Structures are given as structure tokens and as C-alpha cells.
């Protein structure tokens, strides 16, 4: 029973970290209509920034500043936000596709740096000994899991409230206006590019925060955590939940993560050992098909606002 509670604590912690990433993507895509194909890259920037700032001193790489966790998270928010702002600055005066291609490139380059800049990121071995919040409780796994879940749930709630407030504010109204009718909004004197860069930067900063939170939750990061599959899972979560709705983003993240874990557990039982690796690819194929089906038949998702986000 205790094991089960611990397991659910772990499951929901992971799912809620995904939910934070999805909330960031929802600001970029759901509210502003900006297509980010490099989610994994932005999450990785946050994770590595916070890890480098907070880990104890290490001989073989830069960093290990041993700063408090909150400083690490703040650093993750600032740096990921800055990279996102620059990405937006370079591409948002051009057609929407260029942002997509550039974010894809950002993810490739971040992955490359994570793998090869050993003196900064630890290379393929990653960074270990990342301090964990309430690490003193680790002797009692149940309490530790539940406290962590409480921390992550609080952050999710705060981010969600913050985004809800933003989207109701005059700033959020401008973003919606730009999405629905760009010309009308511009004719009212709104600088479309500047608002979009801001939204992209805030969304990116939230992804960076999620990456940092996850790094401290697991205590270890490596380049393999930030492959395109992550980007893809987050997109599936947003589309299932219904883009445009924060509640949908959170519910979508939990539901897709449950399906993902469930499918993984099921295939571990059913499929013989030699086929396990192949089954993992089939899992991704299924999510890909699911994403396409949702785009075709239910573009508003399952938990979205009553009014779709104007896709038709």
C-alpha cells in the first residue's frame, strides 16, 4: 500500500512536470499561435543551467557553484527566457515556418552542446549529484516522494494561475487579438512582433523552469533525456488536452503520461524481451498517429474550451 502511494507520488510528480512544460507550450501555441518544434532543447537549457549553478564543485567541469536550488531555478528561467527571446527576435518578423525550423535547430544544437561540451555539461555522462529539495528526507522514501509531489504541484498551480492571470490581462487580450485577426490588432497600434517575442520568451522560460524542476526531482541529467521524443510527447499532451486552455494542458499531460506509462508497462508484460526495443518505437508510432488523428478530427482536443481556437 505504501509502495503504491509512493509510486503514485512519483507518477504524478513526473506528469505534473510535463504539465508545466505543456503550460509553457500552451502560452506559445495555444494563446499566441507560435509553433515550437524544439521544446526538448528549451527544457534542456533550463535543466543544465540549474544543475550547473547548484551542484557541488566538480573537478572536471566548469560550474558546481553550489548555489541554493531557488537560485538555480531563477537562473534557468532567465537563461531559457533569453534564448527564447533571441530565437523569436531572429525569426518572428518572417513567416511562421521559419520559427519552427529554427526551434528545431535550437534543439539539435542544445543536444550537441550537452553531448560534446564535456567541460560544461559533463558530456554523455551528464551531471549527477544535483541537490534535491528536502533532500534530508531521502531516508524516508514515502515522505520524500510526497513532499516532492507537493512542491511540484505547488509550482504547477502557481504557473497555471500566473498564466491564467496573464491571458486575462490586457497583454493576453492583445495576443488573442493577434492570433484571431492580426491586421485588426496591428491597425489598433499593437506591435505584433514585439508581443509575440514576449510570449515566446515567457513560454520558453516556463519550459526552462520545468526542466530545472525535473533535474532537481531526479537528481541526475544526461543528454538522452532531451531527445525529440520529449518535444513530441509534450505536443501530444497539449493537443489531447486542447490548446488554448491551461486546465486542458494539465489534464492532457496527466492523461497522455498515463497512457504512455500504461502502454510501456503493458508491452513489458506482453512482448518478449528481444522485441522490447522495437515495442518502444511502436509506442511512439502510436502517439504520432494519435496526434495526426486529433489534428484531423478533434482539433480542439478533449478538455479544451467550448469554443475551439478558431482552427476551422
Amino acid at each position, binding site marked *: 500500500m505504501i509502495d503504491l502511494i509512493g509510486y503514485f507520488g512519483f507518477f504524478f510528480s513526473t506528469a505534473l512536470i510535463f504539465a508545466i512544460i505543456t503550460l509553457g507550450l500552451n502560452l506559445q501555441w495555444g494563446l499566441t499561435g507560435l509553433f515550437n518544434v524544439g521544446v526538448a532543447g528549451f527544457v534542456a537549457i533550463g535543466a543544465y543551467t540549474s544543475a550547473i549553478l547548484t551542484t557541488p564543485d566538480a573537478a572536471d567541469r566548469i560550474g558546481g557553484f553550489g548555489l541554493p536550488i531557488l537560485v538555480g531555478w531563477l537562473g534557468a528561467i532567465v537563461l531559457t527566457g533569453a534564448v527564447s527571446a533571441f530565437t523569436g527576435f531572429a525569426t518572428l518578423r518572417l513567416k511562421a*515556418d521559419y520559427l519552427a525550423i529554427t526551434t528545431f535547430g535550437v534543439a539539435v544544437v542544445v543536444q550537441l552542446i550537452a553531448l560534446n561540451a564535456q567541460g560544461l555539461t559533463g558530456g554523455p555522462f551528464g551531471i549527477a549529484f544535483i541537490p534535491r529539495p528536502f533532500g534530508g528526507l531521502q531516508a524516508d522514501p514515502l515522505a520524500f516522494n510526497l513532499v516532492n509531489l507537493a512542491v511540484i504541484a505547488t509550482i504547477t498551480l502557481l504557473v497555471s494561475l500566473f498564466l491564467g492571470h496573464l491571458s486575462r490581462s490586457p497583454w493576453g487580450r492583445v495576443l488573442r487579438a493577434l492570433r484571431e485577426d492580426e491586421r485588426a490588432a496591428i491597425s489598433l497600434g499593437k506591435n505584433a512582433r514585439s508581443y509575440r517575442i514576449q510570449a515566446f520568451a515567457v513560454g520558453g522560460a516556463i519550459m526552462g523552469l520545468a526542466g530545472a524542476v525535473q533535474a532537481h526531482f531526479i537528481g541526475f541529467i544526461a543528454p538522452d533525456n532531451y531527445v525529440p521524443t520529449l518535444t513530441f510527447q509534450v505536443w501530444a499532451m497539449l493537443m489531447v488536452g486542447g490548446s488554448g486552455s491551461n486546465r486542458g494542458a494539465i489534464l492532457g499531460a496527466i492523461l497522455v503520461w498515463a497512457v504512455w506509462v500504461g502502454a510501456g508497462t503493458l508491452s513489458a508484460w506482453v512482448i518478449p524481451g528481444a522485441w522490447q526495443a*522495437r515495442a518502444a*518505437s511502436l509506442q511512439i508510432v502510436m502517439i504520432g498517429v494519435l496526434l495526426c488523428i486529433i*489534428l484531423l478530427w478533434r482539433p480542439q482536443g478533449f478538455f479544451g474550451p467550448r469554443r475551439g481556437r478558431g482552427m476551422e
Partner: protein
Amino acid sequence: MNLQFLLDGTLSGAMIGLGAIGITLTYSILRFSNFAHGDLMAWGAYAALVAVGAILGGPVPVLGLSFGLPLIVATLFAMMVASGLALLLDWLLFARLRARGQAIIVVMASFGASMALRNLLEFIFTSSPVYYSSALQIARPIGLGIRITPDQVALLVLTALLVTGMHLYLTRSQRGREMRAYAQNPALARVVGIDVSAVIRTTWIIGASLAAAAGVMVGVLVQVRPLMGLDLLLPMFAAAILGGIGSVPGAVLAGLIIGLSEAAAVQFIGAEWRAAVAFAILMAVLLVRPTGLFGVTER
């Protein structure tokens, strides 16, 4: 200084260029950046592998090449498979979403399709690399310290033929003129009675066939693996944008520039940073001259 990197860069640039033709045509005619294009390439390479292995009974080398007639026939088969796949995807997915008029949704669908296609290949063939032939190639010196294998000569000639043919087709044939007309002004093209669905079909067939040919070439020169298309996607996008969206000669020239820059980076900086080159070029183009080398100002 060893100048071998010039040849290596030209070869990989030729393959990037061939792939970028498909991307630039899809972008200018169907108006979306196709993230599944690299996977058409990989599917082409695997289709040729299956054809060479199963149907034709293994490669028969001729003229010192590592491959022979069977692989050439298999490449034609691969082009057909990739074209069929592209048309199927368009019919199932892209055409329906295009009809709704939100271009970025089509991009997202291509991203989903790309993940599905790539992982389907991993499911069927596993992620370990395979080769068309285990024959060893002897590189011959051609001066300036550069050595070239018969395979490399053949592939360079083949690329030149494909690109010239494609250029002539787009500039001289009736369908080619229709494609360019549709790219410039879709509404007007409809009004003058251009068969739009034929234009779209031709675009997919050309793009997918060249991608499959490039995929087989990568397979001959390097190896065949499910991620081969994904790894080339960023260089191909960068080439299409550097060349100027819609320009076939631009895509090929830009492909060569990127291939050579990558090879130079491998030579002078280190092989592990190769993949960052395309990104650096892409960012430079977007910041300095987003229309690219031969691009026209955005409509």
C-alpha cells in the same frame, strides 16, 4: 593541408542539395515546411535495401563500383515507394488539413507523421545501421592529395544528371511552367485553368523521388539507418532557405555550400560539431538575408 575535405563536402553537399529540392518545392507550392521530408529519404533508402536484398538477390558489382544494375533498379523502386508514400500522406493528412487553410497545422501534422514514419522504420528494421554492400572500395588519387572512389564518381555524375534534368523539367516543360505559375500565384493559376491537383501530385513525386535517390546515395556512401533522414533535416532546411525558397539551382548550390562548410568544420574544428554548422548558417541567413541567395521577396 589535406584537401580531401573538399571532396567529402561536395559529396554530402550533393545529397543535401538533392533533398533540399524537395523541401523548397513543397514549401513554395504547397506552402508548408515538411518535417517528414527526411523520413521520405530514409524510407527510400530502406525500400532500396529490401529490393536489393529480396527481389534481386544481392548487389552485382560492375566497373569497380560497390553496386551494379540491381541497386540502380532498386533505386527506381525506392523512388516509386517514396512517391507513393508521399501521395498517401498527402491524401490521408496534408490535403485535408490544407483545405482548412491554417498552414501551421500542416507543419505540425508533418512533424507527427515524421515521428510515426521514423519509428515505424525502427520497429521494422531496428535502429542498427545496415549496408547495401560489404565490398571494399579502393580510392584513387586524383591530385592535390584528394582520393576518390568509383562509387563517389558515379554518385556525383548521377546527382548532376538529376539536378540538370529537374532544372530543365521545371523551366522547359508545360507542367514545370504550371508549377512555377502556381507557386507565384495560386489564385491566378486556378483561374487560367491549371490542373492544381496534378501540380500538387507532381510536386510530391519529384520531391519524394529525389529524396529517395539521396537516401540511397547516403546509404551507399555512409550507411542506412532510421535516423539518417532526421540528421539531414536541418542541413536540408538550411539549404532550402539559403538557396531561396522555390529556387532549385539555389537549393543545390546552398546544399554544396553547407556540405563544404560542414566538411571544413570537421577538418578544422572537430567532427562532433558538424551538426551545428547548418544551424549557424541558417541563423546567419535569417538575420542578414532571409530571402536567401536566389529568393524573391515574400509574396
